[in-house]
């Protein structure tokens, strides 16, 4: 019963945080609300006895991604956009109405499903007996899902490489292709060319 009450509280805060995120004018505020949402999601993970994931959720999302966003936001100095129109005038009502309708339809369908538990045997008791969430999780991770795990590492490598080629300042020394970079005075001309 306690869990249920806690779940409702966290659920309400999650959605509230989400709604806050998408309605704030100030990007930093939105970001903080996003992190607030993530923390609530982590709390729900906790309630579901997915302790390891809860920790990861806080570390990865609330930690890493937050910092990344803050960095870029500060770097690009986005404050100036706050004075501009924030929503997409042409379609915001359409989008809102459609989204509510789709949500309603999702709930109608979901309420009609009779889920059948696969009874995989990994109950919290069994997990505790087997050495705790982290151990069991890791066992499964490296036995069952090793290949996706490796692929995930490649994804991160790709993201890193990509971020570098998109963002880094090119040095003359190791790049023979310097002249492609448009002059600081007239960037528009080169930038407009068809690819």
């Amino acid at each position, binding site marked *: 019963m306690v869990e249920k009450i806690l779940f409702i509280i966290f659920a309400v805060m999650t959605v509230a945080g989400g709604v806050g995120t998408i309605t704030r004018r100030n990007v930093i505020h939105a970001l903080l609300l996003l992190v607030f949402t993530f923390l609530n999601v982590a709390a729900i993970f906790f309630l579901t006895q997915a302790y390891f994931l809860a920790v990861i959720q806080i570390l990865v999302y609330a930690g890493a991604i937050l910092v990344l966003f803050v960095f870029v936001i500060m770097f690009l100095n986005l404050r100036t956009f706050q004075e501009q129109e924030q929503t997409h005038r042409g379609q915001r009502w359409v989008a809102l109405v459609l989204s509510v309708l789709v949500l309603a339809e999702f709930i109608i369908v979901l309420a009609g499903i009779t889920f*059948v*538990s696969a009874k995989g045997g990994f109950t919290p008791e069994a997990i505790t007996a087997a050495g705790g969430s982290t151990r069991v999780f890791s066992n499964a991770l490296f036995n069952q899902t090793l290949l996706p795990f490796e692929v995930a590492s490649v*994804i991160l490598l790709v993201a890193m490489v990509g971020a570098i080629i998109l963002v880094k300042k090119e040095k003359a020394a190791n790049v023979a292709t310097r002249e492609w970079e448009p002059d600081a005075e007239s960037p528009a001309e080169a930038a407009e060319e068809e690819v």
Partner: protein
Amino acid sequence: MPGGDVLAIVPELIILVAASAILLIEPFLKADRTAVMAVALTGLFGSIAVSLGLLGQNRVAFAGMLVLSDWAIFFKVLFAAGGALTLMMSSDYLESQRRHIGEYYALLLFAIIGMDLMAAARDLMLFYVSLELMAISSYLLAAFFRYRVRSNESSLKYLLTGSFTSAIMLYGISLVYGQAGATNYAAIENALRGQATGSGTILAVFLVAIGLAFKVSSAPFHMWVPDVYEGAPTPIAGFFSVGPKAAAFSVILAAFIVGFPGAAEQWGILFIVLSILTMLVGNLFALVQTNVKRMLAYSSIAHAGYLLAGVGAMGWSKNSYPGETVLIYLAAYTFINLGAFGVLAFLKSQVGAKFDYSLKQMAGLGRRSPWAGVLLSLFMISLTGIPGTAGFIAKFYLFGSVVWANLVWLAVIGVLLSAVSAYYYLRVVIVMFFKEPEEELSISGPMSGGMAAGLGITAFATLRSAFFPGWLWDSIVRAFGTLFS
């Protein structure tokens, strides 16, 4: 971990090694990027060779996540060949655009790894992760010319639409997991077999289908395609039009046949409806394009529509035969479309900044650069589906199978619309050969070896499979057979 598991991913490992090697040697290179190209091609051809060596195996690896079979090998070879052709056509182009750096090759190789694993995957988890590997590499490739507004915009649109749809698909996957308690295709089928196919299952399956329909650029999830292709580097646009699309089709065929056969009729109808919409949208928008690159983007939407007709017929008839014709279409289309984009890349690299791919600038091209003109004509004729080219064989098989599935009306729509498509494809040919140019564009140099090889191979494949499709068809039937074992 048993050694057999590793054997099943050796083709991907070779590509991974090549990609990593490129990233490592890149900083030590001077202006010349030949070494990078050599490494990349070695990796891809090595992968093809090893894949072919593994033919006939049926190896379940990584706890059932992945199956190395002729099915997977067919796609591995197709993707690696497509990737190699893209690379050959890129070198000149990148040089002329003065952004010839190794990361381009590495990203392309990473995307191919993702596509390979998508085709081999037998588990939604691996499928999703591989799809994202392919997608993220694609976003970055689209953004490759980071100083160009169009390249930025292309990447932005790709990223936003791509991650939005993949989130929707992920939501569908979570619902599949919720109802089946597993993510392995066979296990899903096993679990769902006991349950009635209710609206919950169909919703989950359809949401996954939407994600894949996005990747194959089906209407109404197609709107990103023309913008992304137009803004992406030209060889990459060609690659986008064949690689990720074929990979998504491989998953549609594999996952939906193996994982959701119970809902085959429903997803068959869904794909048929999407197919009609896609054929219409692709052709009717392509008609009015004046930019050849953009026209090819819409044309790729139209071709996705034809392919979806085959997929829909497969679900509707609950028979694999239309699926097999989808594969032959994909194989033929890969070479034809890469060739077409390759010629555009060649022109861009020769003419330079002035060239904007507009139909107007193609005028008189057939005379100034006869080879480019003849090759582009060949590919356009092939895309139209005129006899004597691979495109005709592919269309014939595909629509034949649709007729076979008792969907004559669908085949008639398809054939009518491909008759319409003759207008915009052959217009390019007419403009190239029968129109005097308004301004003379100078074609500065001869074709480089890589470009010539790439275009030569695509042209050869286009013609060869037009007259000897039997071999290709046999290997496809064999590959398809392994999907069910």
